[in-house]
């Protein structure tokens, strides 16, 4: 069993843009070691160089990349191999579990054929004949808990979790010594994520395979790895025992990453998301706006059916929901649970079925014309991905003023824009007015989106996964802002999320949605600490936590 050793590895990309020529250093002087049979996690945000490092194991870097230092599998230096030798090493000695939910499987071949291909390329005594190889595929399907006939499927016929299982089966096919898992559970639901992680853990332990796992999610690594390395901007920030990295990080950056995964039940993080920014002082407790009893938005017997292709999807079933003034309500569920459809419906973006009632301050939700526009002045939305939610061609000023112009605001537009940017904590606002979105960071962009909504002085903010597309270290900032808007302005919010920790961080109440129905609804502490419904319990159990290390 060979060790995997990164010895002072630096990787630079030669960029060939017509305007800018130059080298971009993706990985800088990284030395890491994965002993045979061990497990190593590499954590980092986008752009940290963690995937580049993973690709270097099998020399899969694009042609414009140059590697200095050495990557060794046992005694072999990967960069010394001839192309033929390299091909023999690929997959037979080390294999990769790609992010299968995305595009790592060829859409025009059956998945079985794609597994078979790996076997044909690395024939051993165990699968010398066509028949033996077919049997091996069957065996692998069994290992990853899929029925054998699924091998005949094309990738698009499988769900995300099934595709990820196929990727695992493929990685195991040639009995490698080392497996590199590159974001193996990204884009999967918590519960599926849990299944996949458990499976990888079991297989790695049973087979004594060394595992290097790459993820942006520290909690995922915490459940699977003995050691964790944290990377930032191509450099190694901290390496250590998983337990120490998660619970007692030495570096401030690691601390920020860890704080993105609050422990549910920990009083320190309740109503207190951790932010690295200097925050304006919170108003004194007696002046903070709190949740009141005044009902703003309510839905009764809400059903939503929409057509997707030819079949009708009944996405929301008999939902009752109320949002009170000053309340932060977290609507929690997996993808496909209907939570986004529900949000779109209460905003009037998606028509509800007949017999459903949605009211804002006792008035039925208008469907068109002036009344709808006026309603939009009261209820605003913050979308998941701020890079997509801002027209890249417009300046911050125009973006924030857009709503005012649509609403025919007749006050001092400029003053209102500056005010809103200030409320969204883009200070001093003047510095940002002329910027276009690509000049801003992800967190700043999300603040612009929030400022745009605040400009028209809404009473309710609907936020659909407001931090899901942001880097972990920015997460706390945006959550703190949402909480502070409630405390300072009394703004109510409906926050749609898959992340129970987020609810613990900022929500007064939690509604759990499962298959179109709200299965549990109540104050946050009650729902998260004393869950009544089976599904809520499953969800809580599946969420990876950095505390798992304590148990392990």
């Amino acid at each position: 069993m060979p060790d995997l050793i990164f010895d002072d590895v630096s990787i630079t990309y030669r960029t060939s843009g017509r305007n800018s020529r130059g080298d971009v250093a993706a990985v800088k002087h990284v030395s890491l070691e994965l002993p045979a049979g061990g497990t190593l996690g590499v954590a980092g945000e986008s752009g940290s160089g963690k995937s580049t490092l993973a690709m270097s194991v099998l020399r899969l870097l694009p042609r414009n990349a140059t590697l200095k230092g050495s990557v060794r599998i046992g005694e072999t230096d990967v960069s010394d191999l001839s192309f033929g030798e390299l091909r023999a090493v690929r997959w037979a000695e080390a294999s990769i579990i790609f992010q299968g939910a995305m595009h790592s499987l060829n859409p025009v071949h059956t998945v079985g054929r794609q597994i078979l291909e790996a076997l044909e390329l690395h024939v051993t005594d165990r699968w010398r004949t066509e028949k033996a190889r077919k049997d091996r595929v069957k065996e692998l399907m069994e290992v990853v808990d899929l029925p054998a006939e699924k091998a005949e499927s094309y990738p698009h016929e499988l769900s995300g979790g099934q595709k990820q299982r196929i990727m695992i089966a493929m990685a195991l096919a040639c009995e490698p010594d080392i497996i590199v898992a590159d974001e193996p559970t990204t884009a999967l639901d918590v519960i599926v994520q849990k299944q996949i992680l458990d499976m990888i853990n079991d297989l790695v332990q049973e087979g004594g395979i060394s595992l290097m796992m790459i993820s942006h999610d520290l909690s995922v690594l915490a459940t699977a790895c003995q050691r964790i390395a944290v990377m930032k901007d191509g450099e190694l920030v901290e390496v250590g025992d998983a337990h120490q990295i998660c619970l007692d990080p030495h570096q401030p950056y690691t601390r920020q990453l860890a704080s993105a995964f609050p422990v549910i039940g920990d009083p320190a993080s309740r109503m207190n998301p951790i932010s690295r920014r200097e925050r304006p002082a919170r108003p004194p407790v007696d002046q903070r706006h709190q949740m009141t009893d005044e009902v703003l938005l309510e839905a009764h017997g809400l059903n939503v059916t929409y057509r997707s292709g030819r079949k009708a999807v009944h996405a929301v079933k008999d939902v009752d929901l109320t949002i009170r003034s000053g309340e932060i309500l977290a609507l929690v569920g997996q993808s496909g649970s209907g939570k986004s459809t529900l949000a779109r419906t209460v905003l009037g973006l998606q028509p509800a079925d007949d017999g459903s009632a949605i009211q804002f301050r006792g008035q039925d939700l208008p469907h068109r014309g002036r009344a709808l526009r006026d309603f939009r002045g009261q209820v605003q939305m913050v979308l998941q991905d701020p890079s997509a939610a801002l027209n890249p061609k417009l300046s911050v000023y125009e973006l924030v003023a857009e709503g005012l112009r649509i609403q025919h605001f007749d006050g001092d537009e400029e003053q209102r824009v500056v005010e809103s940017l200030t409320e969204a904590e883009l200070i001093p606002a003047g510095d940002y007015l002329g910027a276009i979105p690509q000049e801003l960071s992800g967190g700043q962009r999300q603040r612009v989106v929030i400022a745009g909504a605040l400009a028209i002085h809404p009473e309710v903010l609907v936020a659909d996964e407001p931090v899901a597309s942001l880097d972990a270290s920015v997460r706390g900032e945006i959550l703190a802002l949402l909480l502070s808007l409630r405390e300072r302005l009394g703004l109510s919010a409906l926050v749609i999320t898959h992340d129970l920790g987020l609810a613990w961080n900022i929500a007064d109440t939690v509604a759990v949605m499962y298959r179109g129905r709200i299965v549990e609804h109540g104050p946050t502490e009650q729902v998260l600490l004393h869950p009544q419904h089976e599904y809520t319990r499953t969800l809580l159990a599946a969420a990876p936590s950095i505390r798992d290390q304590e148990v392990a």
Partner: protein
Amino acid sequence: MTATTPTPVIQAGSARTMAWRRRSAAAKDFWREFRQYPSGMTGLVVLAVIIILALLAPVLAPTRMLDLTQLLDSPRYAPPSWSHLFGTDDQGRELWVRMLWGSRVSLVVGFAATAMSMIIGTIIGIAAGHFTGWVGGLLMRIVDFFLVLPSLILAIVLSSVLSRGVMTIVIAIGLTSWAGTARVVRSQTLSVESRDYVERARVLGAGHWHIIIKHLLPAVMPLVLANTTLTVGSAIIAESTLSFLGLGDPSKQSWGTILKNSMDLSAATSGYWWYVLIPGLAILLVVLSFTLVGRVVETIVNPTLRSR
């Protein structure tokens, strides 16, 4: 993606100046990038020269040089030489004079038909992408229909039925060549439409008009621009083909008409090679230039094609 420091404070109160300044900066960037491509620059220079020559036609070659009554003594079918630069035709007219005047018709038809085709294509493309339900479905069906229909055949039908003239050719080409643009615009519209900033505008209370003017149109314009340059080339080919088939304006010179004459006189098999070669080379040169410029514009505005 690294966040650079935002541009320095631009004193508020100048939202419009700000937008204008950004646009002019974008235009400058575009030009700076365009200059990096030798192929595009070559095309641009060739086009500039040809357009200037076409504009100067009345000065360089007064109309009397085409007047048959004044050409009774000039030689027929004279091959190119110093005294007859491009040779002469069956009626003793200098080919270079005919070419010069022909360039005006070819270019005017190319530009006018393209303008027409772009306007129709953009409007239908945006509408087909933006409106859902039966309106969008119907428009999409129509676009697909015109896309597969041989536009030249339809243009032939239109120009045979309408009275002969430059305007007819423009209409025939314009009405039949918009589908490609509509397709590109529609798919771009759909992709913009699915982006969150359109949803955000809708949540802010925006109606169709605001979304189309503020978000969709600016997003499709660069593609339309690239398409325009490419379409001028094919419109010029279409014009020459229609003229070659005898559907052009008989009273006007155009490169296609000259080739039509040469074909009627069997110039190709009778050894009057210049009569065939020169007009065709001119078309090739102009169309190639438009294509080169168009491809560079396309590469710049659509970075996903950068590797082409």
